[in-house]
């Protein structure tokens, strides 16, 4: 689908994706709490509109790179749910055969080039992917998701300058939830802001209410069209809010309760739901989407729990071709 728009079908598509992201992450949180998912887990609850609104404007052969909070990006780009859930569970059927986990989910079959455990780690990869695609004669583009924390790391400057210099087809998407781990963005970020930084590096920037799925969609539609038209990179600055803690075990108790309560009022699923109701979509239809999403994720969880663990022998696989070690070595 190309071109933004607030027609119902589009809004419903957005809502469906967002419900699936939310349901996936709520399910994952519960599974993590139940001890079914090992390792750290970062959920994007409250930020779903950014992933959904952006990826609705991407083709299957477009690529994305993501960060540590990447479930939503992957789902919105079309990554297989079962493979994602099993990856979180560390099972053999995971997209990465259980080797990556939540922080390293990738699904190359849909152009999802990987989450990343290093803040800003996806930025150079995205610009290089765009450069490579151009060399191959493709008109696919790359969307690069990162948080407000990433704009204080060097690769942000290097990558944006680079993309602008070579007029690369990259959509930088900054999910600005105002916080990095346990530190407020404003206390570690100087200057006039993300958009100004991008513009100073030659990348035109658009700021948007990242909790308004339709607004994200519209902005992304315009930017993707510009990028695919050959205009070079663009940055989408989406203001949002991280409703949960940094990781699944972080209560984020340092935040003011009132602040969090207010943020819940602005959360993107409720807002889009209200809008859809206004537009005359029956509550039942929305309930069906929500129920389907829940059911899908519950089933994925159940199947993941029953799924086989990876054979320990595969631990030695896929390191490299030359000089690979073997179990018996």
């Amino acid at each position, binding site marked *: 689908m190309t071109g933004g728009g607030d027609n119902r079908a589009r809004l419903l598509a957005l809502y469906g994706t967002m419900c699936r992201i939310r349901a996936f992450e709520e399910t994952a949180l519960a599974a993590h709490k139940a001890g079914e998912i*090992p390792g750290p887990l970062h959920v994007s609850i409250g930020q779903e509109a950014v992933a959904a609104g952006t990826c609705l404007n991407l083709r299957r052969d477009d690529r994305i790179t993501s960060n540590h909070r990447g479930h939503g990006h992957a789902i919105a780009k079309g990554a297989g749910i079962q493979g994602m859930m099993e990856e979180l569970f*560390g099972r053999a059927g995971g997209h990465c055969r*259980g*080797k990556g986990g939540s922080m390293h989910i990738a699904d190359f079959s849909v152009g999802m080039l990987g989450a990343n*455990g290093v803040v800003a780690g996806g930025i150079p990869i995205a610009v290089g992917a765009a450069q490579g695609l151009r060399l191959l004669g493709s008109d696919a583009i790359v969307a690069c998701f990162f948080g407000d924390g990433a704009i204080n790391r*060097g690769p942000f400057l290097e990558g944006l300058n680079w993309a602008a210099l070579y007029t690369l087809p990259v959509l930088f998407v900054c999910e600005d939830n105002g916080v990095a781990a346990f*530190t407020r963005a404003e*206390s570690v970020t100087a200057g006039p802001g993300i958009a100004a930084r991008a513009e100073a590096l030659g990348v035109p920037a658009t700021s948007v209410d990242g909790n308004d799925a339709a607004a994200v969609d519209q902005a992304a539609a315009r930017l993707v069209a510009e990028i695919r038209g050959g205009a070079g990179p663009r940055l989408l600055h989406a203001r949002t809010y991280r409703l949960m803690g940094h990781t699944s075990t972080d209560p984020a108790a340092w935040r003011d309760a009132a602040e969090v309560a207010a943020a819940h009022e602005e959360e993107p699923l409720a807002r889009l739901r209200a809008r859809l109701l206004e537009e005359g979509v029956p509550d039942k239809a929305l309930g069906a989407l929500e129920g389907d999403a829940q059911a899908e994720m519950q089933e994925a969880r159940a199947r993941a729990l029953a799924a086989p663990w990876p054979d320990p022998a595969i631990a030695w696989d896929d390191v490299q071709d030359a000089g690979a*070690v073997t179990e018996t070595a």
Partner: protein
Amino acid sequence: MPEVTLVEAARLAALQEMRADPRIWVLGEDVARGGLFGQYRGFLSEFGAQRIVSTPISESTIMGAGLGAALVGTRPIIEMRIFDFAMCAMDELINQIAKIRYMFGGQAKPALVVRMPHGIWRNSAAQHSQTLEGWFAHVPGLVVCVPSTPADTAGLLVQAIRSDDPVLFFDPKNLFPLKGEVAERIAPIPFGVARTAREGSDLTIVTWSAIVPAVEDAAGMLAARGISAEVLDLRTLWPWDEAAVMASAARTRRLLVVHEAVTAGGFGAEILARATEALGPGALRAVGRLGQPRVPVPFAPPLEDALKPDAAKVVAAAEALMAR
């Protein structure tokens, strides 16, 4: 002596030193909130925002600013959060910090500590589990600390903070909950002195950092099978206690090095190499190493377990050595 966790021991050590010397300060992400592991809990209220500096996610500058601050006479504790992120600051660490005293002909000694919690920890996968401490023993100008007990962590951190050398301090993050006694007044532990974790006569096991408790367990199992293993916890990799290792190995004539790091090219190789160089190959009957195979750390528990050194693997390696 009170019993505290290892991470609390580290906290107490830094606290003691910061109270004594106003030139000491901490910079790193989230340190004002106590640090990722609580190792700076309460520091902000006691020392204020000039000395407990929560920084942007800017590892290059965390590292490099620490260096600059050391060059004008302060004594920074540079907190890297998790070792793997130090990869974002290697120019500052390797090209600048390690070399500046030498390149400038001794005009400056960068007295700083870089804290880098490292190691395999709760299925954190390849980008949060590395143990590359051996790299830094290869780099002139650096001191490398790899403690494994609360008391050693505290004592070595005090020594590190007081040292005029740049010290890389590898907090063993998987052992943070480990409890042990720590003195009210923490005395510095000199660099380069191994701790004999267990005495023995049949073979010498040299080890360090987070794998030490597993090696101690293994030594217990070996004892039950009639094998008397001496366990030396090196505590620092540079300088390292060559004398203690050689003395023990010359006595037992069997030398096993166990580390969590990848075996190939790890610091265990240096120990074996020095042993055969210094004692002569004839002085030893068998040597061996146990580490992670040359494979990134996988996420899934059965995969991580398959690769990670543990007590059972240590026992097997020791028995294989005894059989030779």
